[in-house]
């Protein structure tokens, strides 16, 4: 009784800050459905006289958002697959195989976890350019995977370390090699770690701006955030297009987040704390 009243009061008190925090989204969705004349009108709190869905069709076609989203999806899928494929075995080796030089490897990885991507961008550009991977999604994907490797390895390692050594020994007696132990025993029980790695690498790739800005030059290979920025710069006086294009850019990920929020939150928190 008292607890329910307490909860109600606190929830009511939190509603105002929540409205302020979500205000930018609400304002953009509302404005994106207005006509250009209504947007230029000074009062931002009025509702549109007629919902201008046409704004979305125009922005979608003019901005080529279909291609941008397609490029981003290919990019995200590539990064997830490659990150898992290289980080799981490396994390396993660091957690369960004894070998010399482990400490050096450890420091080299910590270095990558610490140094910002902007600090290595000149040689990174040179390497990609030497491999003819500038202006290519493949080049972007490789650079992003490399940037994620330290975090991915630490995440998998810390999870694998929690698996009892007896399990490894028993599998060895049964004649399993390390590769079989990894794929048949460790990976099937590691869904929380894999899920955390998938969520974090997907989110950081989908949202990346710096590497795409440097690597992707022509519009047809660009990813969504970069494409939106270019679009907003080109059509900056056509506000209805900028607004609806911006909503197109944030709505899919927000809907996806709301649908998967429990797993999403767990994966993100676990990943951040363990990595």
């Amino acid at each position, binding site marked *: 009784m008292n*607890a329910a009243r307490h909860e109600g009061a606190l929830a009511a008190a939190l509603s105002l800050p929540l409205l302020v925090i979500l205000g930018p989204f609400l304002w953009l969705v509302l404005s994106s459905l207005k006509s250009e004349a209504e947007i230029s009108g000074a009062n931002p709190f009025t509702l549109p006289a007629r919902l201008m869905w046409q704004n979305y069709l125009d922005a979608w076609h003019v901005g080529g958002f279909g291609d941008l989203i397609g490029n981003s999806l290919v990019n995200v899928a590539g990064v997830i697959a490659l990150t898992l494929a290289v980080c799981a075995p490396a994390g396993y080796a660091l957690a369960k195989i004894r070998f010399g030089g482990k400490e050096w490897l450890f420091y080299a990885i910590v270095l990558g976890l610490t140094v910002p991507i902007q600090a290595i961008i000149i040689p990174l550009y040179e390497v990609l350019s030497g491999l003819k991977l500038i202006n290519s999604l493949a080049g972007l994907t490789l650079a992003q995977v490399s940037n994620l490797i*330290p975090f991915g390895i630490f995440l998998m390692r810390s999870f694998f370390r929690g698996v009892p050594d007896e399990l490894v020994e028993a599998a060895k007696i049964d004649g399993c090699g390390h590769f079989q132990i990894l794929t048949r025993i460790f990976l099937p029980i590691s869904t929380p770690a894999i899920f955390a790695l998938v969520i974090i690498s997907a989110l950081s790739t989908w949202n990346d701006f710096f590497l795409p800005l440097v690597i992707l030059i022509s519009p047809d290979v660009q990813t969504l*955030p970069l494409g*939106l920025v270019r679009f907003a710069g080109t059509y900056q006086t056509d506000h209805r297009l900028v607004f609806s294009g911006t909503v197109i850019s944030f709505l899919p990920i927000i809907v996806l987040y709301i649908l998967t929020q429990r797993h999403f939150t767990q994966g993100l928190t676990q990943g*951040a704390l363990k990595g």
Partner: protein
Amino acid sequence: MDATNGLRRAFPFLLPAIALYATFTLIPMGRTLWLSFTDSGGFNTSATFVGGANYAAIWNDPIFWQALRQTVLWLVYHLLLAGGLGFALALLIARLKTTQVFFRTAFFLPHVVSLAVVGVIWATIYDPFFGFLNNSLHTLGLGFLARGWLSEPFLVLFSVNVASSWQGFGLYMLLFLAGLQNIDPTLYDAAEVDGASPFQKLVHVTLPGLREVITFVVSLALINGLKGFATVWVMTQGGPYYQSELVTTYIYRLAFQAQQHGQAAVLCVVLSLMAIAITIVFNRWRERAP
């Protein structure tokens, strides 16, 4: 003997990760350091050793000092705005039961949006003519508060940081929430019995219980702040007159627009050293914890 044998076994597991990581991260780190001592003037040009000339040039470059000062200020803003908001909201949301998931999810929404998209969103909010901020101030009769949020020298860095922190606070809130859930609830009961006020409970139970999470979030916020680039680049490109220039945006400008790789590499070294220093300090701090 066992060690070399182990290395032979571990090698195939490590090779793919190490090959990628060395090519696209480790070797570029080393080469950045080398470039900072050369006269490299652009991509695919020859680079000869010039000693500390680039370091001297950067030392005498007023824009560098401005960018460095603003980067430090940017970190402080981010820590206070994003870290502070995340902490305050976590304290309140942790006390909710039935509506906790709703508020946690709703407050987290900005964090799933790309910082570049956040830059576009807030550029429209701050727009002096059709932007939400000035228009609502005028509509509410508070027109005297309307500003050129992105054009006034003493305001621009803060304005852009608000956008970044709006995107960033959600993660810190989640981490604080996770930390709060790990505090033994009987400690609060004991404090209650001892007649502790809410403030005393915060100081003597909550803060000590969150010690580890707080150090983690502070270091994370500082590192995230150091990597700040997208919102500034999208909203102001460092302007007006370098008033929102950060070390990262200055690197991009020197490397890709001015083609001064030697000097850009010096900034890269400075940025790396700042990140390494932050990491070392916070690792020490965490290790010293009781």
